[in-house]
């Protein structure tokens, strides 16, 4: 009813611009609906504005919210990790700074390494080795005894104070790199060439590790050193000479070891010989004593017979003994001369015939 009345009123008050009115009405409708759309869009935009504040953090990074430039939260609490949504006001109120922290960071020092191209690095070959080192291209370090060697190092570290690492250093990894370069030069200056290359490689590595730790701590870089791998090599120009020293040293050791085992043999066989000698003496002693004792026994047995008739006893023993003897020995029988004079016997002793060579 009221509607119809309204219409009626309209009809009455503005009878003329009825057609126009319909146009305005349509326009009004259109405006109203588009205004509604704008309103929805605005609401959506406000929602989007607040939603844009949501962010996530990747697995190999941390994030810090800076509110008016200042980190929100103290120390490690300021670090936002992965696994959940975080929210920040849009700029200029908040700013999200992402810090790439993989578990381990690595820096490599080639300040002491000769110039190589990545291709050469892959094949392990190095062409165009000059007689000298160009200081502009080739790196090296000086050892304590003023030798030149090449050294390179791989250092791995963890960031334990990311706020300091990121906000106090324009490039903390470059600072670590500088420290590593410095420590290689410093350590090489303490080590003799043979120690650095062969006899005390572990000591060299340890010294580098400790000093890098000390210096990065002094500079408060906010990192912890995990490990440091070092490769030291002699200059390529002198590779054969250094190799020859090693060969010679190994040969020396081999010769000495052989001499030791030979010496061992000599001592052992002398021991065996000595044992033989004493054993022989021991058994000779036993034999001798036994036989003497035996003889003494025989003697005691024979004594009574002998005393009974010495002459017969002698004949009884002597004749068979001579007989036994004669059965084996060569013998010449020399009868008495007819004139009763003693015979003269001449023996001619020939030398052994000299053997001719080859016979």
């Amino acid at each position, binding site marked *: 009813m009221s509607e119809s009345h309204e219409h009626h009123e309209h009809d009455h008050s503005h009878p003329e611009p009825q057609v126009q009115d319909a146009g305005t009405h349509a326009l009004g409708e259109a405006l109203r609906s588009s205004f509604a759309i704008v309103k929805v869009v605005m609401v959506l935009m406000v929602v989007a504005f607040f939603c844009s504040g949501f962010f996530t953090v990747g697995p190999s990074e941390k994030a810090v919210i800076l509110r008016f430039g200042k980190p929100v939260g103290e120390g490690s609490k300021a670090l936002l990790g992965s696994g959940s949504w975080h929210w920040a006001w849009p700029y200029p109120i908040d700013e999200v700074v992402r810090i790439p922290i993989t578990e381990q960071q690595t820096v490599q020092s080639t300040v002491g390494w000769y110039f190589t191209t990545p291709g050469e690095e892959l094949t392990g070959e190095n062409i165009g080795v000059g007689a000298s080192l160009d200081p502009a291209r080739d790196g090296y370090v000086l050892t304590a005894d003023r030798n030149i060697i090449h050294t390179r190092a791989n250092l791995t570290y963890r960031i334990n104070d990311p706020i300091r690492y990121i906000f106090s250093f324009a490039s903390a990894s470059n600072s670590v790199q500088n420290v590593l370069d410095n420590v290689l030069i410093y350590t090489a200056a303490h080590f003799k060439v043979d120690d650095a290359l062969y006899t005390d490689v572990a000591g060299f590595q340890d010294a580098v590790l400790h000093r890098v730790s000390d210096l990065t701590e002094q500079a408060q870089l906010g990192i912890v050193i995990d490990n440091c791998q070092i490769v030291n090599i002699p200059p390529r120009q002198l590779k054969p*000479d250094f190799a020859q020293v090693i060969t010679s040293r190994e040969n020396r050791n081999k010769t000495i070891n052989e001499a030791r085992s030979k010496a061992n043999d000599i001592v052992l066989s002398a021991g065996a010989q000595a044992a033989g000698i004493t054993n022989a003496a021991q058994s000779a002693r036993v034999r001798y004593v036994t036989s003497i004792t035996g003889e003494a026994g025989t003697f005691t047995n024979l004594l009574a017979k002998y005393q009974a008739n010495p002459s017969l006893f002698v004949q009884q023993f002597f004749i068979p003994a001579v007989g036994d003897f004669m059965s*084996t020995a060569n013998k010449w029988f020399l009868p008495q001369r007819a004139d009763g004079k003693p015979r003269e016997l001449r023996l001619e002793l020939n030398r052994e015939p000299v053997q001719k060579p080859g016979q």
Partner: protein
Amino acid sequence: MNDLMKRNFITFIIGAVLVVIFALLLFVFQVRQSEVAVVTTFGKPVATYTNAGAYFKLPWPIQKVYKFDQRVQNFEDKFSENYTADSVTLLSSVYIGWKISDGQRFLLTIRNGSIPDAQQKLEGILRSAKNAVIGKHQLSEFVNPDPQQLKFEGIEGEIEQTVRAQLSTNNIGISLEFLGFKKIGLPDSVTQTVFDRMKSERQQWISKYDSEGNAEAQKIRSAAERQAAETVAQAELLANRIRAAGEAEAANTFTVFQQNPELANFLLRIDALKNFGQKSTVILDERIPPFDLFTHLPTNSVAK
């Protein structure tokens, strides 16, 4: 009427918010962590903000804000030559960590407050510090197996002190955080002579090892031989003692033989006779029994 008021109110709020935002943009500035800000009034520095946060300022053109990175910057100078005290040409490059410690001084003394300009200044300061310090030291103080004589850290410290002194004299708002050698080298031609020396040192080692091996082996072998001879001699000594002990033991039986030395003698001689070997040749005459049986054989003398 109510509707109108409500609409006006909303418009007013929106306007006010816009005004506030505009005012904030004009009157407030942020200092980020890692930044230092210097505020100038008509070009004259009046305040420095080193802590992060939001601060008030008057709008341009009255006040202006300059922001600088106050983190530690890395810088290394060119790899350059210096003479040591013992006239060795030493090439060296030094790295430093530096930062802006006084924003106002930095703004006033470094053109545009630009970092490359600052580093150019630092390069000059480093060069003169190196010239002053390296020339005072011998090469043996840079590299030495004896830690007492090695002054590597000391030299770095001297350069650092010189640079610090220069920075505080120049007062350019920069502080030095750390300093160290990044690279040390010798001129191209010198490396050649070093190689020659190294080569001859290697040769010395080679000949040392070669002769040492044989000498040492000889020593070991002769020591072993001496030891072996000693062992055998000891054994012989012991053997003699053993035999002597045996003879002493045997001597106990002499009392038995002494009962009748004649018989003992006779038995010994019989034993000796038994011990002659097969190769013995004996020449006998007929007086020896049992050949004395032949003595009076008539054929014997007739035959001759």
